[in-house]
């Protein structure tokens, strides 16, 4: 056996992506952005006249950052963690000659990759929804040209700001075999993010940090972006260290 090379971190990441085949996590990743696009589409069809592209793109990004992203991250991290919790696969994985932090880092990178893909999928679907609505009902066709670069940049900032949220939710989901703690924290966090939208403390609440990328105050945007991204890295690092040290007693 020793003639074969030691696997690299990239392998652990590829293996995590492999596990998503035919999984509920992948279905969720496909459906959640689709729901927003469907909403944007029917919302446009209800109107009498067309609006600038920016309105539809802003609406899509706002729904994503405000509600759908925190809820999707909650469900996605729980489902991804359950890939191992469900069949009790941790013992098998942790007995392999692979550095344990690779296993958890692979999972974290995979979840971030899926969230990034969901953001791009949302962008594509939103553009398609607005175009399709204009074709079906020309009166509501979007005015002007879409600022695709600006829209992607906004979704990119929302994604980076969500790292802290992803790290917190993933840690809880990996730590507890039951769905309950991860879902309770995720639903609770999203609830407070929604009902306390204008609260100052919202700038540091992981579930509300992404939506702050839509704020008009540039300082708030930069602060929450830095907090979400750097804070996320710090929590990911702590998670990797803690979970790698942990014994699996179950």
């Amino acid at each position, binding site marked *: 056996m020793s003639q074969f090379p030691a696997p690299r971190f990239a392998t652990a990441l590829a293996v995590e992506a492999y596990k998503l085949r035919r999984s509920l996590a992948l279905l969720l990743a496909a459906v959640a952005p689709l729901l927003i696009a469907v909403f944007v589409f029917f919302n446009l069809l209800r109107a009498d006249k067309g609006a600038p592209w920016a309105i539809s793109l802003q609406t899509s990004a706002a729904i994503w950052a405000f509600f759908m992203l925190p809820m999707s991250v909650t469900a996605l991290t729980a489902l991804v963690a359950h890939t191992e919790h469900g*069949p009790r696969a941790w013992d098998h994985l942790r007995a392999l000659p692979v550095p344990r932090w690779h296993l958890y880092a692979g999972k974290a990178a995979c979840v971030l990759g899926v969230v990034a893909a969901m953001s791009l999928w949302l962008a594509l679907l939103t553009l398609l929804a607005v175009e399709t609505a204009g074709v079906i009902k020309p009166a509501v066709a979007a005015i002007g040209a879409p600022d695709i670069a600006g829209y992607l940049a906004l979704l990119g900032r929302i994604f980076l700001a969500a790292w802290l949220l992803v790290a917190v939710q993933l840690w809880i989901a990996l730590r507890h075999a039951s769905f309950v703690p991860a879902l309770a924290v995720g639903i609770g966090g999203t609830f407070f993010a929604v009902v306390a939208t204008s609260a100052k403390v919202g700038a540091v609440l992981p579930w509300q940090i992404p939506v702050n990328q839509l704020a008009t105050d540039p300082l708030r945007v930069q602060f929450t972006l830095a907090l979400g991204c750097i804070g996320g890295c710090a929590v990911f690092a702590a998670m990797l260290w803690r979970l790698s040290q942990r014994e699996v007693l179950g």
Partner: protein
Amino acid sequence: MPSAIETEGLTRRFGNRVAVDDVTMTVPERSIYGFLGRNGAGKTTTIKLLLGLLRADAGTARIAGIDIATDRLRAARRIGALLEAQGFYPNLSGHENLDLTRRLLGLPASEIDRVLDVAEMTAHGRRRVADYSLGMRQRLGLARAMLGAPPVLVLDEPTNGLDPEGIADMRGFLRELPARSGATVLLSSHLLGEIEQTATHIGILSHGRLVLEGALADLKAGLAMEVAVETDTPERALLVAREHGFDVARDEAMRDRGVVVARFAAGEDVREATSALNRVLCIAGGVRIHALAPRQRSLETLYRNAALSAAPAAA
């Protein structure tokens, strides 16, 4: 004979409870080592210590000479495991499940076909694991444990949940495993029959302590031989035999059939002693004997003796 697995004073506590207590065991290379003990005796905890899934409070464990605590990655490359919780991804096929582990181990893709063939699972490799029977999952677990041909295989209760046919099938497969794969097999079970028909060596764990270990044939040879005597007058048979110095007792399990059991020390010429017993009972005692048959030295007796000898100390 060199050792595939060696532990020395291995100890693990959970709070005040000592789950594994000063276990020193030696598993010879290319043996099938039956690791016996009732549920809760500490078998799974010992296996988790051998795999580096738990940290020992004291003692050492070496796999193929490598200390699992100080060099886990190198030791883990020499051990493949089938654990009680199999840990398969039901949304993936058997082939895909093996492919995941194969990639993590950095092995060539051809390894999958090799282990599927050894486990006789080639025909089912493309089916989703969700559609597998329990026996097929166990075989797939064996295939996964054999990826990369590790010199040591640890199998935790591989017949758990299998039907009688599946157990017989698995037993035959396990017996051939060292020859097929060249591996040493540590086979954990609480089923004596399974171990007796499969293992070359045994270790018996009781209350976390290893109370007996050795080659099964040697241990059995060291057991007292028993001869069962079936008679109409068991009380008289007992009286006469004892008067002539035989070690006899009623067989409580066969009391209704009037069976008396005579025990002969290990090493005693049993044929000679049985003839003597026959002469004493028939001629001197006038006891009418229906049957007189030597009993096989069994693992059950070994296990019972070992567990009984351990019980007072553990209490």
